[in-house]
């Protein structure tokens, strides 16, 4: 996985501005959400706008853990460990 800092290409997951390029995220990839939650990508429609996710951790709302939802691109702030 490249950070894209040295120059970007179409397969990068993060671009030079540290924006996560969600179009390329594979299933199983862990991601950080704006509210601090950690989630796993369960399906990627590759439209650059939405991801299907499962919550792994959520300090704001622990009841979300294990549930599935969709997340919009601007709410994905980073890649998980």
């Amino acid at each position: 996985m490249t950070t894209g800092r040295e120059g970007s290409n179409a397969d990068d997951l993060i671009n030079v501005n540290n924006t996560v390029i969600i179009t390329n995220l594979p299933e199983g990839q862990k991601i950080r959400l704006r509210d601090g939650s950690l989630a796993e990508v369960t399906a990627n429609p590759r439209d650059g706008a939405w991801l299907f996710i499962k919550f792994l951790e959520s300090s704001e709302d622990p009841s979300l853990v294990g549930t599935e939802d969709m997340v919009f691109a601007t709410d994905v702030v980073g890649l998980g460990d």
Partner: protein
Amino acid sequence: MVSIIHSRGDRSLRDLVDLDKGIVAREIYVNEAIYQQELEQIYTRAWLFIGHESQVPNPGDFVMSRMGEEEVLLVRDRQKKLHVFLNTCRHRGMKVCRYDDGNTLIFTCPFHGWSYDTDGKLVGVPHHKAAFHEELIKDDWGLHEVAQMSNYHGSIWATWDAKAPSFEDYMGAFAPTIQWCFQSTDGEDNGVELFNPATKWRIPTNWKFPGFSFDGDSAHAAMTHRSVNVAAIGPQGDMEGGSRSGVKAPFSKTSYEMMLPELGHGGHNYMFDQPGVSDYADTWQTEPKEVDEYYRGTRVKKQAKYKDVYLHGGDGGTALIWPNVNIQPHRILIWHPHGVGVTESWRQYPVDKNAPKVVKDAQRRYMMRYGGPTGVTESDDMENWNYAFPASLGTVAQRLPYNFQMGIGHDFKDDRLPGMTFNYRIAEENQRARLRRWVEFMEAGSWDEIYPVNPKKNTDK
């Protein structure tokens, strides 16, 4: 009765169409107000051809189609159910899909990101919590779906009107013709697939020029297509003098114009003097021998299936299904309105889905040289339509009616095919049937006025 108002004063549509005399005003082909009325009165009500289930075999598959001027999506959802949706986001109207076909998990609008599942439900709204305060009821804002859809032996049809009769009632006595056109050449139901993609192009003419004439105009072939026939573009090359069509074995039958004036459908077909199906005549002289071998084999199977059946009106014929699609065994021709003086023509070509590649390739090559925007036969037709429309636009031209008098008063019935109206194989009875239905649809306030069919009402002035 709906009137149109224009600079020449109020005139009803019935003043423009006199089918007892076979006289039709050119105005109905060139008037913008009439065209807009057609989009409302005809294209929001009629059953329209969408595509074929073979175009969307897997969950998430979609293909773009049209209903009138409007784009729709034929989609197979993740539960394998078929849907037809209007291709417009419910938020601000942007197209949710700009591809001709593909496979997707969701349809996402590129404007504000609203996303829809393959069953049409609105599933993703950005800022739903922060900006909409979770007050937007997503269930109310899914993709707009057709009121009725029918999968008829693999062919997909749809209507926006919940009050439209069922598809089979809409088709009437032409339903078997549709069934047979989507059989494979061995007589198996739903035995075809469509070549992908469809060919699409626009011609500068009103949709009714080709739409009302195409199937029901035998008279034009000898003149319009003379050069094509002489050029021997058919699969048999110049065998037996050549033709644009294939070789057919002798089988006693008579060709007629056949139509259902009460429903607006019509075409050409045969009444047979003997039951069953003709023997196969080798025809693919310009292709590998495996092609004739394949079709010879499928013909034997079809003969066994229909051995004792008179295939009146059903074998080898063609039908224009009101308002704008022509269905033939190897071609589907759709005339989409695209403006009063523009028609978007689509061609889709069925082929036996189990045929080997050599057969499919041969069929594809023949269809490309026969029809479509580069096919030599349709180039002839387009030349007529391209010039008939502008030649009818002028002030003086519009004072002169069109003549639809061929065979008028010589229609008849035949007990062998109850319900159907017949005329000599070269007539304009088909076109008069469509024009009659055109007036009925244009005047009707709803389906209640045009179905069930009331023969007495339909002949009243």
